[in-house]
């Protein structure tokens, strides 16, 4: 297991290298001169040129890339061209809100999707099942921005139960923190609830007629125990992959959600930096998201080994 983990961690390096090439290319080949944008519309040509030199933008792109990559390996993501702060510390400042939204929405997802799936499988012979299928499809395909607007209008404006925007760090109180996160996290969770509950239901329905389930029933244990233990444990294995992809997908979703609910997280940072052509920050953020993505994938693979004893990592 340890060996496997180390091997996997090492294999991250080439992946990250490719990711950084792509990120770098996209940022540097898109039109729009950062120096020009920073200085404003009616700046002089000389001033622009001077700034370009200062930022190293006049160097050949290959050199720029190598400079950046070597610095990244040293743990230095560069400085924002907008605020001159180190990119790493900018990102670290913004992690809190993003992870908070992701965490709360993941908890929502699991707390809602798992009981729903178990209940639907328990009542599988009733109309509940077709109803569930439609509902989960709806949940999985609902457009986030539209749903967010709807919730804001309903539960933020008409019946003002929840704040419509903003973020309060957990350090300033758990309840206010949670209160501000409920709407955005719920919007994010909707799609995931649809996906994961459906996946679990399918997996459980398959396990429900397996021989081992029959053995469990023949022992005389409760049907609820059969479902929640024997059937669920087996359905969880294929679902884990989806949960992994889902967590990664949440990262993408936060970009939209943070904009709508004005949460100062990574997503908003990315959008703002794109507007400002703050390319070191853009590169840093995308690289950071890629790292998170890879780590989540690794964790899911390791979790797989815990859930399914037939899998051995050696």
């Amino acid at each position: 297991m340890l060996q496997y983990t180390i091997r996997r961690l090492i294999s991250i390096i080439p992946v990250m290298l490719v990711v950084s090439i792509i990120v770098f290319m996209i940022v540097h080949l898109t039109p729009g001169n950062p120096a020009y944008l920073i200085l404003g519309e009616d700046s002089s040509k000389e001033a622009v040129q001077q700034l370009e030199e200062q930022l190293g933008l006049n160097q050949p792109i290959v050199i720029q890339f190598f400079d950046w990559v070597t610095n990244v390996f040293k743990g230095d993501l560069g400085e924002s061209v907008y605020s001159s702060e180190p990119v790493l510390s900018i990102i670290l400042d913004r992690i809190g809100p993003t992870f908070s939204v992701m965490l709360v929405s993941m908890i929502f997802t699991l707390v809602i999707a798992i009981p729903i799936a178990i209940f639907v499988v328990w009542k599988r012979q009733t109309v509940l099942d077709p109803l569930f299928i439609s509902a989960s499809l709806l949940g999985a395909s609902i457009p986030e921005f539209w749903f967010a607007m709807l919730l804001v209008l309903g539960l933020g404006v008409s019946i003002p139960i929840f704040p419509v925007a903003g973020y309060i760090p957990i350090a300033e109180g758990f309840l206010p923190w949670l209160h501000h996160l409920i709407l955005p996290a719920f919007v994010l969770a909707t799609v995931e609830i649809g996906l994961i509950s459906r996946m679990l239901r399918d997996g459980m329905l398959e396990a429900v007629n397996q021989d081992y389930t029959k053995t469990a029933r023949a022992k005389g244990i409760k049907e609820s125990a059969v479902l929640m233990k024997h059937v669920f444990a087996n359905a969880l294995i294929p679902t884990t992959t989806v949960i992994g992809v889902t967590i990664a997908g949440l990262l993408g979703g936060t970009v939209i959600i943070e904009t709508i609910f004005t949460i100062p997280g990574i997503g908003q940072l990315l959008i703002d930096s794109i507007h400002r052509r703050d390319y070191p920050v853009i590169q840093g953020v995308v690289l950071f998201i890629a790292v998170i993505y890879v780590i989540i994938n690794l964790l899911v693979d390791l979790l797989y080994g815990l859930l399914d004893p037939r899998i051995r990592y050696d």
Partner: protein
Amino acid sequence: MLEVKNLKTYIDTENGTVKAVDDVSFQIKAGETICIVGESGSGKSVLAHSVMQLNPSPPVFHPEGEIIFEGKNLLNVNEKELRRVRGKEISMIFQDPMSSLNPVFRVGDQLIEAIRSHEKVSKKAAKKRAFELLTDVGIPDPERRLHDYPHQFSGGMRQRVLIAIALAGRPKVLIADEPTTALDVTIQAQILELMRSIQKKYGTAIILITHDLGVVAQIADRVLVMYSGRIVEKGSVSDIFYRSTMPYTWSLLRSLPRIDSDASERLIPIQGQPSNLIERPKGCHFEPRCPFATKACLEIDPSLTKRGEGHWAACILSEEEFSKKKQELEVNAQKGVAK
């Protein structure tokens, strides 16, 4: 002790209602061994599952019949009562040991679950009993094996574990649905030996479904022959093997291999397909395939009639008619060979 009376087990399907078990009656006493034989699809498994209510329902339902265990009709008892019977009074082991253990839980935990579902014992006491059970069913090094997962066991060892699970509640009846079909011949013999020793030790009644007539000859007290959802003959081993005058039994005996039989004896498969379980023909269900059939068989659906003490068969032919026809058939067959 256990009595099945006029049991019907039907299954709703898209094409109609499958009459998988159609008016079956039998009983079993403590310590007795009953074997159920019959072609594939004759309803043996559905019948066995019915006794423990393990058929998926819906689509499976029981339009008629009773399953009386110690005075109670299991078809009417509530869920709690049924759970008490399952594993504690009646246990079952299944055909495929490879898929009958939950792959994600340790063998010991699955065994302990069975023990604790009927006895309020501490984890420690349950573990001790699990150890004894594994020893009982002949698993070497049980202490260590309790911590292993099913995939670390061979097929024969898994079936032993499943037998241990079935025995955990000290049941009075053990139903085994082709428990050795998926195993090697040598392992088959070991598993059967194990079942016999368990029966001797605990006086368990055994209902064994099997295709192996050698096994039937060795361990059965009584035999039920099933065809298209019905019992077409029942009696002692010698009734069935030596005194049967029932054409289906006769054909079945010729079509199935026996461990103890002479290899040179040719197996003669039964011609044709098993009858349709949805739309029953009017006369005898075996008529289209029966080498003994007469015109009357198209009209009369024979019910079980007494042929001797405890020996019943469902066929309109009398003993004499059967022997006469059989002789004719043999003569014809010899003529065929001579040509």
